[in-house]
């Protein structure tokens, strides 16, 4: 419980820092959000600035903004007249979430077994293949993978669509592109975790007890080996999130990532700010959940928390 309160406090602190930092950054940009509009006569420009309180002193804008955020209102979009940031998020987040969940699902279902096999057959063919493939997965940037997939499966073979978002078949390619890196990472972490565990004394004890290889792997080794994988879940989710920017853009998927990229291109500051805050809140919450899962997995943590070695 003490742990929980501590973490919640940290979370709020982080969010506060992010909000402040992003706010200051956005307002540090020379000119205003409307200076890119070349065709606006000056009168209209002044009007817009009034409407968005851009002429108020900075601290007032900041206070206003904080108040808005606290009540859940992330402000209007500068680019799209009638839509607020909240609306944008509400529409597009479920799409991104769906894609993201599919990608995470594949990463876990492919990555963990691959890692286990690589570890059990250490220094033999399955291990070498796994290491080679995972290095490629880590090194080939998502957008290149996406382009490759499109080229092979959509353009050349015509099996799967490249720029749609309808029906399960349109999720395959983007999910594959998104999951490349996380799967590779999970496979590696599982493999190294497993290797480390299989070398431990307690595995030798279990062998001496006469248990079968299967029991050794599933009951004794797996739980220990997966601990580093769980710690990776936080960065994994963050990676899927940032990966979504590019993947959604390439595959023309109407998700939050694509809106983020467009808003950057349009210099739509409230949207940029709003989505950043949303992402931050999301990540911070998910990280907390991951830490709770971690504490559940490793009994040493639960019982010794607070004691630092």
């Amino acid at each position, binding site marked *: 419980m003490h742990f929980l309160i501590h973490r919640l406090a*940290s*979370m709020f*602190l*982080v*969010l506060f*820092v*992010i909000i402040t*930092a*992003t706010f200051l*950054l*956005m307002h*540090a*940009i020379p000119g205003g959000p409307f200076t890119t509009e070349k065709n606006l006569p000056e009168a209209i420009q002044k009007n817009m600035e009034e409407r968005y309180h851009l002429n108020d002193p900075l601290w007032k804008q900041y206070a206003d903004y904080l108040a808005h955020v606290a009540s859940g209102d992330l402000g209007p979009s500068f680019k799209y007249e009638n839509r607020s940031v909240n609306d944008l998020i509400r529409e597009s987040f479920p799409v991104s979430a769906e894609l993201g969940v599919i990608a995470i699902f594949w990463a876990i279902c492919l990555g963990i077994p691959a890692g286990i096999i690589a570890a059990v057959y250490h220094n033999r063919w399955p291990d070498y293949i796994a*290491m*080679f493939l995972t*290095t*490629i997965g*880590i*090194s*080939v*940037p998502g*957008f*290149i993978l996406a*382009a*490759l997939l*499109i*080229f092979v499966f959509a*353009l050349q073979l015509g099996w799967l669509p490249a720029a749609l978002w309808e029906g399960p078949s349109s999720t395959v390619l983007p999910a594959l592109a998104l999951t490349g890196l996380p799967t590779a990472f999970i496979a590696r972490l599982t493999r190294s975790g497993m290797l480390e565990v299989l070398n431990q004394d307690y595995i030798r004890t279990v062998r001496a007890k006469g248990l079968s290889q299967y029991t050794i792997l599933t009951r004794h080794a797996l739980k220990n080996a997966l601990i580093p994988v769980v710690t990776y879940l936080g*960065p994994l989710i*963050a*990676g899927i*999130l*940032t990966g979504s*920017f*590019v993947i959604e*853009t*390439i595959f023309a998927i109407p998700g939050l990532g694509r809106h983020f*990229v467009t808003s*950057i*291109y349009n*210099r739509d500051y409230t949207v*940029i700010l709003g989505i*950043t805050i949303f*992402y*931050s809140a999301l*990540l*911070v919450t998910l*990280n907390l959940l991951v830490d709770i899962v971690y504490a559940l997995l490793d009994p040493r943590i639960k019982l010794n928390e607070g004691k630092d070695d």
Partner: protein
Amino acid sequence: MHITPSAFHRTPFPQEPLSTASATGTSYWQDAWRRLQNNKLAIAGLIFILLITLAAIAGPHFSGYSYADQNLPEANQPPSSMHWFGTDNLGRDLMTRVLYGARISLSIGIAASLINLTVGVLYGGIAGYAGGRIDNIMMRIVDILYGIPLLLYVILLMVVLGPGLLNIFLALGLVYWLGMARIVRGQILTIKKQEYVLAARLTGASSARILLRHLIPNSIGPILITTTLAIPEAIFTEAFLSFIGLGVSAPMASWGVLASEGVVSLRSYPFQLLYPALAISITMLSFNFLGDGLRDSLDPRMRK
């Protein structure tokens, strides 16, 4: 076997000369180098890195084209003997642009890694060595900043700073040292606890001496590995930024810019994406193989 009484005369047993009596000891670094050499992929990676660096430095001079020369009638030509990689949509020679991009991407990678090395080692070193409250505060700051993915910071910074090579250096340098700081601090904490540091202190070694002779040399391994692996990350970040429009400005040709131009014409001229994509991927692969190899060979537990 016939045993004569003289067989039982007392004589000293022939001794092995000491130098061959035990397996030739190798120092940590020699052993690591030897193991690295055995790792074919790591060596392949190293060779490729050297080659691409050479090509980046010398290549653009020898191609006969400049990265900015437009030649519209020659636009979108597939690879030929005149243009080994073909031309882009403005008739510029793609190979020159790729090699020129190598210069930019590699220098971003290396410069960013060096900045993040320096800042990270200093920050992490001080935090780890000082310990106590200072360490607590310093790492608390790092943890808070780590709350969101570092890439987001870079993106936001680039939005503020605007496109440009120097701005990329700045953005990367301001952000990625966090990772190095954590690793260095962790390493220093581990070493500090080791008994040989206590032994050194007991024999009267001063703080500076402990720092120099024990803490730093033993941290070099993880620092080296992290730096090697930071380079592909920086290259990737630059490519990513260019892809979403925040990277270096045209007509400069970083690999990210070339890739994003290539994606647009994927249907009609796939080679325009193929070469920059290959360049990025193989370079990142090489650094990753090398980094992996370093990690395996510098791991003291795996000494054979």
